[in-house]
């Protein structure tokens, strides 16, 4: 079983490495990821929000919905942990 998994992992890894041949080189300033949305953020962020840290500005202002959903996810995780582990019956107490 382990051998089959190893072959599968090596095959998928080889496929991904073959896929990296077409990617732009590491640190290329002209790559597509660096030339579409982010120049607008960098140039506008300080003038429009007076926040020198561009990451903070984008995190809480331009993409505020994203952060709100993420805060809700953490809150939900805390609730799930409380529901699963908090004592509600006597038999759990003995085994722990």
């Amino acid at each position: 079983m382990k051998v089959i998994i190893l072959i599968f992992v090596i095959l998928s890894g080889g496929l991904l490495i073959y896929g990296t041949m077409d990617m732009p080189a590491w640190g290329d300033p002209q790559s597509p990821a660096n030339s579409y949305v982010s120049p607008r953020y960098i140039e506008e962020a300080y003038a429009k929000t007076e926040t020198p840290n561009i990451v903070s500005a984008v995190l809480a202002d331009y993409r505020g919905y994203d952060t709100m959903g993420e805060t809700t996810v953490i809150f939900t995780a805390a609730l799930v942990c409380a529901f699963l582990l908090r004592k509600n019956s006597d038999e759990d107490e003995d085994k722990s």
Partner: protein
Amino acid sequence: MLDFIIGKFNFWFYVILMAVGLFAMLAKRNLVKKLIGMNIFQTAIILFYVSIGVKKGNVHVPIIVGGHGHEGELIQAADYLNPLPHVLMLTAIVVSIATTGVALAIIIMIYRRYNTLNEDEIIEIRQKQLEAEV
């Protein structure tokens, strides 16, 4: 040739790291080991995303130099790193901690019920229970 290797070896390392995590998730039979593999897998993907935003040469981190008092100066986008992958991955890291917490809670519940963390033993006990019920 050397330029090609320098430009690409990061991606190869990320793929190897991801393969290590995937192997741990599939082949290890212990639940905590599987969770460690999941963490490694997540970190490799986050690493890949962050490395997309890197720019070579003399660039600043994405914090405007000088802060206040430089309102009039024009900010060139080529002088700063790409902030967008950083923002997206910042949320991904914190969510990964939340998922780890939930997974550990489920692991503790499993240990309380079956008294083991090995996947094969859990399946065995579960099958015996099902047969006893029938």
